[in-house]
C-alpha cells in the first residue's frame, strides 16, 4: 500500500523539469517531493501563501494537550526561529497544516496573490489526488455525497488554473471499482482539466476524449488494465515501463 503510493509519487516526480513551479496536493501528491531528482530544482507552491518549500518537519507530540501546544507556540514564534531552521515556526505551515522550512529563494504572499498564481496560469504543474477521472479530463476529488463535509479548499482553483494537471491516485477504489470512467459520477472539481493520470498500474494521457496509456507497471497486462478501467483505453505506439520504488 505504502509502496503503491510511493511508486505513483516517484513516477510523477520523473515528469517534472528543472525550474518548474509546482503545487502538490494533500495525500499521494505530497510524497512526490521525496522523489524529485537531485539534478533539478522544483519550486513548491503552497496555496496558503508561499513559493519555495524545503522540507515538511516531523514535529510530533506538540498537540497532545493545550498546555504543551501553547508552550511550543510561545517558544517558536516571532524572531525566535526562522524559515531555515528545522525547529519549526508557528507562522510557517504548508496547506496540509504541517510545519515546514523554506528554501533561500522562497517568498511569502497573501491569499489573493497565491490564487492569482493558481488561477492565472503561473503554475507549471499541479499534482492532485483523485476520486474519479473521466475521458473528458473531468476530475472529481473533493466530495463524496452523504459523507462528512470537506469543502473544496483550493482544489478547484488549482485544477482549473495550472498549465498541467497530473492526477495521482490508486487505479481502483478499495472495493475494486474503477476510478477512471467514461463519465465521472461524483461531484466535479473542474471540467476538462486533467492532462495525465498516474496510478500504480499505468500512466494515462488524456487528449481529445481519449485515454492514451503511455506507460504501464511491470507485470501488468493490457487485458488486466482494460478490466480495471471503466472506459476504453488507447495504447501509445511505445508503451514505457513505469519505474518501481
Amino acid at each position, binding site marked *: 500500500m505504502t509502496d503503491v503510493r510511493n511508486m505513483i509519487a516517484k513516477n510523477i516526480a520523473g515528469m517534472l523539469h528543472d525550474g518548474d513551479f509546482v503545487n502538490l496536493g494533500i495525500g499521494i501528491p505530497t510524497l512526490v517531493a521525496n522523489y524529485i531528482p537531485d539534478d533539478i530544482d522544483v519550486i513548491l507552491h503552497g496555496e496558503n*501563501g508561499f513559493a519555495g518549500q524545503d522540507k515538511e518537519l516531523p514535529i510530533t507530540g506538540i498537540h497532545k494537550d493545550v498546555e504543551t501546544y501553547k508552550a511550543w507556540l510561545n517558544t517558536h*514564534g516571532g524572531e525566535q526561529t526562522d524559515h531555515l531552521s528545522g525547529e519549526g515556526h508557528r507562522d510557517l505551515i504548508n496547506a496540509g497544516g504541517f510545519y515546514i522550512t523554506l528554501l533561500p529563494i522562497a517568498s511569502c*504572499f*497573501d491569499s489573493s496573490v497565491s490564487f492569482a498564481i493558481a*488561477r492565472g496560469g503561473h503554475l507549471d504543474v499541479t499534482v492532485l489526488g483523485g476520486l474519479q477521472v473521466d475521458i473528458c479530463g473531468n476530475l472529481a476529488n473533493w466530495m463524496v455525497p452523504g459523507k462528512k463535509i*470537506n*469543502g473544496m479548499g483550493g482544489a478547484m482553483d488549482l485544477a482549473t488554473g495550472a498549465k498541467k494537471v497530473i492526477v495521482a491516485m490508486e487505479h481502483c477504489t478499495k472495493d475494486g471499482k474503477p476510478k477512471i470512467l467514461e463519465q465521472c459520477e461524483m461531484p466535479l472539481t*473542474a471540467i476538462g482539466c486533467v492532462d495525465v493520470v498516474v496510478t500504480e498500474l499505468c500512466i494515462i494521457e488524456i487528449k481529445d476524449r481519449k485515454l492514451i496509456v503511455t506507460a504501464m507497471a511491470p507485470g501488468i497486462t493490457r487485458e488486466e488494465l482494460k478490466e480495471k478501467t471503466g472506459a476504453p483505453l488507447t495504447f501509445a505506439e511505445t508503451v514505457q515501463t513505469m519505474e518501481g520504488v
Partner: protein
Amino acid sequence: MKNKVVGIEEAISHIKRGDTVMFGGFGGYGTPNNLVQEIVRQNIGDLTAITEDFSDGYKPFEMGLTALLSHKLVKKAVMSFAGGQPRVTEQVFSGELEIELTPQGTLAERIRAGGSGIGGFYTPVGVGTVVAEGKETRVIDGKTYLFEKPLRANVSLVKAYKADTFGNAIFKYDSISFNPLVAMAGDIVIMEVEKLVQPGDIPPDRVQLPGVFIDYIVVQEEVAP
C-alpha cells in the same frame, strides 16, 4: 488622533448578535484566536462567519474558530474548507448550520472585491461544478467563466505579528494569508497583534497591511490556539 489601541472586551463589544463577521488566517494559523475566544466569552451568537475554514477539529482542544461552533454561535458560514472539522458536518446535518462552500481562491477574490469597490467578477473556477449552480456563466474570448459577487462584513477580525499604534502591520511568513484582504472588507476592522511598536518603527515600504484600514488594535502577547 483617536487612540486605536483598546482592550479585548471593548474591541469585541463592537460585534452585535446577528452580525456578519469575517476572519483572517488559514487553518488556525494567522487567525485572530484571542478575538475568537472573546466572542465566545461575550456569547455573541447568530453570526454569519466568512472564513477559509473553522480550523482543525482533530486536535484534542479547540483551535481557531472551532469554539464558535462548539458554542453554537454561527448560523451561517461562507467558507472554503471543512475537512477534518467534525462539528461542521454535525451541525450542517442537524440543520443548525447553513454553509455556502466557495473555492478558496474565489473566496479570496470575493473578499478583495468587497474591499475594493468591485461589483463582481468572472472566474473560470467552478464552471461545470456544483459551485456554478444558480450562477450566471459567460463566455469571454472563447473561455467560460462564472460570475461571482463581492463579500463584505459588519466586522472584520485579523491577526498580525507586529503593528504600530496606527495599525501599520507586518506578518511572519505565511500567516499573512487572508488577513490583508479581510482588513479591507469590514465596516469595522479589529486587529490582534503580538507586538505593538511606535509609528516609524516599521518603515513605510515594509508595511504589509496599511494602518488606514484598521479601527481597533488589541495587543495579545500570549498566543491562543
